[in-house]
């Protein structure tokens, strides 16, 4: 082993790993968010058939983020990925007013899942860069988020494509997991 590797090994303790599940309807912006987290190019995204997974390092944590496709056909498979989830990130297309009800329904069902009981949820009100986007507080009201009492939750306005708001959301994710894991 080289000197450098040896030094590196002494310096850092192994990162704490977190399993994060990224869900939401199709075209919500899950993959764009994932790529933004990994500091990758977001201009060549395609619809996710199946799932993507990436590991992202952030403030001493290794986030293993599972991005599962959101089309109706794939939603029945979401439950296969619930086990051992530390935190759920739910992404909403704030400009897709027609499907706000549908996305609220999917979220409600997720929160009722036994395997996700008590798992904190970060809701990204995505696509705030679009002029017709709903404000985060409107979404929170529409989805009646205030009725969530069995877990920690937060809604964060963001634009996954520009990256605005993403960092703030992830800071909350890490803080929340950190206090839970201690």
């Amino acid at each position, binding site marked *: *082993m*080289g000197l*450098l*590797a040896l030094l590196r090994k002494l310096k850092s303790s192994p990162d704490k790993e977190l399993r994060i599940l990224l869900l939401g309807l199709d075209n919500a912006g899950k993959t764009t968010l994932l790529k933004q987290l990994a500091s990758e190019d977001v201009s*060549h995204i*395609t619809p996710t058939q*199946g799932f993507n*997974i990436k590991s992202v390092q952030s403030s001493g944590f290794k986030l293993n983020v599972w991005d599962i496709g959101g089309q109706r056909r794939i939603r029945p498979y979401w439950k296969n990925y619930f086990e051992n989830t530390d935190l759920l990130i739910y992404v909403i297309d704030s400009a897709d007013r027609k499907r706000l009800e549908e996305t609220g329904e999917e979220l409600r069902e997720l929160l009722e899942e036994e395997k996700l009981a008590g798992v904190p949820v970060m809701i990204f009100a995505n696509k705030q860069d679009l002029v017709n986007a709903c404000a985060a507080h409107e979404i929170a009201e529409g989805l009646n988020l205030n009725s969530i009492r069995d877990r920690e939750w937060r809604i964060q306005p963001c634009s996954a494509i520009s990256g605005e708001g993403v960092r703030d959301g992830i800071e909350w994710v890490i803080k929340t997991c950190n206090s839970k894991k201690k």
Partner: protein
Amino acid sequence: MVFSELIASLWTQLLVLLRPMLKWILRKVTGKCQLLRITYEEQPGSKQTKRIEKSLRESKSSALKELSRGDRVDVDEAVKNVIHQKDIVVDIHTKFEETLRRCLTYISGFNNLEALVEGHRKVKYSTANPEHEAKLLKLWELYKPGTKLQSRQCAQWGELGFQGNDPATDFRGMGMLGLDQLLYFAEKYGDEALNALSKSSHPKHGFSFAIVGINITELQYTLMTKRKLRTHFYNLHNPRPSMDAYHEVYCYLMSEFTKFWFKEKPKDIMEFSRIREKFRRHIISLLKDPKTTLKTDFQQQ
């Protein structure tokens, strides 16, 4: 690990430093510059063109470097300049001029194609554009002959393998390139395209045809921008490929992917990422053979 990486990086650095010296020695010993040596060492084909391209790219002269990346190179002018710059006596090295001209035409043709492809990809699908909308409806007619689309936004699009009621949101980063390629496949090879769609429709072991199609557009696009497709295009008869030549590769990939998918016997759609990656590696391994052209039975005219 780190140590071996260090050695590897030092070694590359050393090669970069030694390369000019080595070139100089070879030039003195053989009496030929690198470009000229390649025309003697390689037969016409993708390997020769790639070696010429590499030599130009690594050249100290910015004019020569430019020839490896230019998409509108005046080939006649460039050949004249290289012969002059490298002091090549064409009466002695009789093949040189012809070989260089051929290679430069292929290189510039490929670079030009890459620019064309990027142009199509950058055009976002727009529901406000009647031409885009017409293409989308044409797509329905070609893949669902005899079935009437109930309305522009409806659940029927799912039968074609789009995600929701409006396909417009599925083209995303691939823009009009994704739609054009799905269209080209059905227009040119209708039987093959309908066959792929019908196989993909298996309720348990199938896949979503249209969005997999858009994924394959992305796969081909990445192979293109990483210049992996040079093997194919440098082996084609026509050194100045058009968009149609590019779409032909797509037809090949779609048809091969469909076969590949079922050969892998996937449990369900969640295996897509794995199988797609395996398929990508398979195509890259094919492209490592300098003789490869990506063509299948139904494309032999």
